[in-house]
């Protein structure tokens, strides 16, 4: 019992303790704010990627694509765990704006989709500016629904000067040129007329929140894209199938089932024309499919965690030094306690308890401060931007809206636990030294 009372009194009455509390509180505050923002950004980024592709992806990076996708879509349609499937054409194209004097050409990525299906599988409809409520109209320009429309990534649209204004075609007409490929990967038209070109009219803008996608992607109607890429005959081909599973189906489990189905499907089709293209097709879950994009962000998060681990080690040293000083000051107390029968273990418990209290108090104050700061972080950033033009993340570069500011309970608990462990680690050696102090020597030195 005396350990608790003395630990609390040391905490409240030893001014040097305030330095330890301050140091740990600052660390907790910084870690809480940065980890919350960082975790929020990473989670948001993952969510955006998930929204972009659905739960599972079947396909190949080859621009040739793979055949018989319609048959497999039918098979998937009969599976009780599949909610929707969206076939995708993905390729590269050159675009030029008709009616624009500069005659600028630009290389872009094209994505052929069936908007109704794609909207069910992905979060595509939510990314649209004008057709959020009826995604099926995504490719129907409002000034003439019979024209072939295109949806531009928001940043690409900005570059082309087609943002804003919706009612008329004006200069928002694109000539899209592709190099159609045969099933063997050769140019479909090895002659003078190498290129397929088609005109599309601006119908909407998509803001996926993914910088690369929004800056280089145009969405086209599936069949038009298939034609442009030479994938509509003799056997129709697609590059990808995006799949969404029913609620409650874990995407890993779902992907395993789809993978088995695909294996059987490939076996069945092994003797058919272009069957060799099926061998190159892989089944991946959305995380693996977007690994190239997600991994660097996750790596950044790991780096940050490692950096804060180093901050933690520094804090251990601060606590070590502070405790070393406190125990130097309190050696008389230790001698007195031992003279009235306190054991070495009890002395150790006293100082470890003291360290625990420092960790606990610092965690509470640091987390509370962090929570308050996060609560206002967007207002603070807004104020800084308004008065000094400063933004933590330049929104013209980073596709984020508000700075994530929701401190998760798990993150807070881990930070608090780490702070307490850091304090205990820093105090361990000095506490052990205190426990081993010879009472006779401490009392004699105190007398001197």
């Amino acid at each position: 019992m005396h350990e608790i009372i003395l630990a609390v009194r040391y905490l409240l009455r030893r001014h040097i303790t305030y330095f330890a509390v301050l140091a740990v509180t600052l660390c907790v505050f910084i870690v809480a704010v940065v980890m919350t923002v960082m975790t929020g950004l990473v989670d948001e980024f993952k969510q955006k990627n998930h929204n972009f592709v659905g739960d599972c992806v079947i396909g190949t990076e080859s621009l040739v694509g793979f055949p018989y996708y319609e048959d497999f879509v039918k098979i998937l349609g009969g599976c009780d765990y599949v909610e929707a499937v969206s076939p995708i054409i993905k390729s590269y194209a050159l675009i030029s704006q008709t009616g624009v004097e500069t005659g600028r050409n630009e290389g872009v990525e094209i994505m052929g989709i069936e908007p109704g299906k794609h909207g069910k599988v992905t979060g595509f409809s939510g990314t649209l500016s004008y057709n959020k409520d009826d995604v099926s109209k995504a490719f129907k320009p409002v000034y003439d629904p019979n024209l072939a429309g295109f949806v531009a990534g928001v940043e690409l649209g900005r570059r082309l000067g087609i943002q804003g204004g919706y009612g008329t075609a004006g200069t928002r007409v694109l000539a899209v040129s592709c190099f159609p490929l045969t099933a063997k990967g050769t140019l479909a038209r090895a002659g003078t007329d190498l290129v397929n070109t088609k005109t599309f009219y601006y119908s909407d803008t998509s803001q996926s929140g993914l910088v690369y996608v929004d800056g280089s992607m145009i969405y086209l109607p599936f069949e038009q894209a298939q034609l442009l890429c030479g994938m509509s005959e003799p056997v129709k081909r697609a590059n990808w199938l995006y799949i969404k599973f029913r609620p409650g189906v874990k995407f890993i489990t779902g992907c395993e089932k789809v993978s088995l189905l695909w294996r059987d499907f490939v076996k069945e089709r092994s003797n058919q024309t272009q069957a060799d293209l099926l061998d190159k097709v892989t089944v991946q879950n959305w995380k693996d499919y977007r690994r190239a994009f997600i991994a660097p962000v996750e790596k950044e998060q790991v780096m940050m965690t490692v950096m804060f681990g180093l901050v933690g080690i520094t804090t251990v040293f601060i606590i070590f030094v502070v405790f070393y000083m406190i125990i130097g000051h309190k050696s008389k107390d230790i001698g007195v306690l031992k003279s009235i029968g306190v054991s070495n273990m009890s002395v150790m418990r006293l100082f470890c308890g003291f360290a625990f209290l420092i960790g606990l108090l610092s965690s509470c104050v640091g987390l509370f401060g962090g929570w308050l700061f996060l609560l206002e972080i967007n207002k603070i950033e807004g104020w800084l931007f308004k008065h000094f033009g400063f933004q933590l993340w330049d929104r013209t570069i980073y596709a984020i809206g508000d700075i994530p500011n929701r401190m998760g309970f798990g993150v807070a608990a881990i930070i608090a636990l780490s702070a307490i462990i850091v304090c205990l680690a820093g105090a361990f050696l000095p506490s052990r030294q205190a426990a081993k102090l010879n009472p006779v020597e401490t009392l004699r030195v105190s007398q001197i």
Partner: protein
Amino acid sequence: MSENDFILQAAGVYKSYKMGVAEVCVLKGIDLAVKRSEFLAIVGASGSGKSTLLHILGSLDKPDKGAVKFEGRELSRHSGRELNLFRNKTVGFVFQFYHLLDELNVLENVYLPAMVSKGIVGWLGSRKQAKKRAEELLAELGLSERAGHKPYELSGGERQRVAIGRALMNEPKVLLADEPTGNLDSATGNGILKVLEKLNKTGQTIVMVTHDERIAQRASRVIMLADGKIVNK
């Protein structure tokens, strides 16, 4: 006189310390026996080893050679836990510089020995009783008014009386006082000696160490320590 009449005995006690490279022999074969209810004063010049002897008698230190017996049982045979219990229950220390804990008030300093021997549950159960005993002790020592004060708010004499109260909290069989008046003026020191005399009259065994022979004369028996040996009894 039988061995049972002695509460504390030291036989052939040697103790030496290292001071740099040199080894200083502080006690050179001390034989000593303290009777029950005795007020024994150990006198000696500074550095004669009297405080070391007191620490050894109270199991705060261990002899290099020789044995210390309490009620016939050798202290060296006690386990660490038993020695802690011995220091907590059986002996009470009073130091020259009081050695009170500044973070605790007077009352808490007095009942601290009762607290350290109990766990949380045990303390919650016996807290009232311990507090009552501490208040009674403070009343006997004339410090009732000072119960809520911090040690640094008290005079030297008051602090030493608090230290005596702390030493008596668990009703120890032996009170070991190391220069209890050494840091006080003569009038205040005299007051402390009166307290010790009063305690001795109630049957409390006291072993007091002092360098002042006049103070030592207040005890019922005086022994002198010189050059690590007892020179007269």
